[in-house]
């Protein structure tokens, strides 16, 4: 077994898990199951990031997305005690078909472009933390970095202000 074959096997495994979990998320009626399915999908995506030579972003994906954002989702789901989505009989079958048709049209259009485009593979690729950091703290990305930190501060204050219970009079 050669290294490219090994990578290919790993990639198809992760890809199958990612697509399967995404489908499970969309199909599941209980939102908590959907959340867990999304977590599985995110972790397998992190595996694919690792295969694509970006270990730093792979670790960040698990720490930020699967480890923090989804925990937030789960907390909200559990605290709001969300029940299963009720399936109303017979309603909206046409709209469901239209939705799936539109999704298929989108996939077809973009897919036809993707299979026609040429994607070379760069020979030497160094996406270690040091290289990404050196680019991140360069001129124009430094400004965006600082702006993002102010954005996070704003969202922190906003989330607390929005979710606070009004003090009873």
């Amino acid at each position, binding site marked *: 077994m050669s290294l490219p074959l090994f990578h290919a096997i790993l990639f198809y495994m992760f890809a199958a898990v990612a697509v399967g979990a995404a489908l499970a998320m969309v199909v599941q009626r209980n939102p*908590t199951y959907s959340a867990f399915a999304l977590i599985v999908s995110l972790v397998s995506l*992190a595996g694919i990031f690792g295969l694509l030579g970006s270990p*730093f972003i792979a*670790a960040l994906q698990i*720490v930020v997305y*699967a*480890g923090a954002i989804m*925990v937030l989702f789960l907390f909200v789901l*559990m605290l709001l005690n969300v029940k299963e989505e009720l399936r109303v009989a017979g309603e909206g079958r046409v709209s469901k078909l239209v939705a799936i048709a539109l999704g298929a049209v989108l996939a077809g259009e973009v897919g036809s472009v993707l299979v026609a485009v040429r994607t070379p593979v760069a020979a030497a690729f160094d996406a270690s*933390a040091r290289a990404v950091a050196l680019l991140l703290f360069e001129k124009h990305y430094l400004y965006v970095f600082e702006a993002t930190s102010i954005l996070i501060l704003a969202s922190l204050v906003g989330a607390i202000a929005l979710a606070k219970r009004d003090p009873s009079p």
Partner: protein
Amino acid sequence: MSLSPVQQELAISTVKVLVIFGALMTLFSLMTYVERRLLAFMQFRLGPNRTGPFGLLQPVADGIKLFFKEEVTPAGANKVLFVAAPALAVVTAFMAVAVVPYGGTVSLPHWGWMPDWLEGRRIALQISDLDVGVLYLFALSSLGVYGIVMAGWAANNKYTLIGGLRSSAQMFSYELALGLSFVSLILVAGSFRIHDIVDSQKGWIWQWNAIRQLPAFAVFLVAATAEVNRTPFDLPEAETELVAGFHTEYSSMRFALLQMAEYINMITASAMGANLFFGGWHFGIPGVPDSPLWFIGKMLAFLFFFIWLRGTVPRFRYDQLMHFGWKVLVPVAMAWIFVAAALVLWRHS
């Protein structure tokens, strides 16, 4: 038989995984016994000393009992998640062990009966030497929260839910402090690789990060204790509070799995403390050769410290715990990052 390089690496890694897995299971069962004995001695009583010589067969007896106990699933519990939660907790606990180094590299000697790709091969005493080793540990402790959240929610019991939510809130609050304490180590060593951080502590004993970066070590000690849910931060799972919290409804093997996850997390935290703060396999006096034995000794000292802490200190109340994590540890860790960054800049100028 000639194996391709990929297959050679896979074979060596498989052997390493099996050896470390066996060692961890042995250490885990030994820890359950040692903890009970040491706590007993600290409390001026004897502890288990009847099964086997000095009670050494106690873990075996516990294992047999747990094996034969009936597994009860509460009615109305979410069956899939109820079974999956201990499994997830154990999987993330064991995956963290993959980046823990316990020595430098050894060269296999030339014995003559091994296949030629093994003769004289240099093997790193670490299952996988990731370039982002410290980030990987951080990622896995983030994933470890899910085992507890799932366990708390799936049992269909309001006390377990509260215990699970409290425990996961505690874990991700102290995870932040833990990560921030690592940042100053990474700054000084200049790399995310655990091997590089250990090598930055080579030399004399005062070059160890526990002495050179004392505030980071203090924050790590507190945050690691909270991460593994040990006393004084074990409010979410103590038997006297909330009826054992998130693992109330678990019996027999699933409970054993949750305990195993906690102990393996404790062992990983001790191994990380020994590596990142106490110089790992370096002895601290330049003449003495590096050896995994020094690392194991330091790790066992850390484990003893965790047990000692459990026997000595009362537990935090939940609001005191959250206040301490967010309003004390995080600012201290951040302040130390500034100081460490300033020192690194000054050294390089």
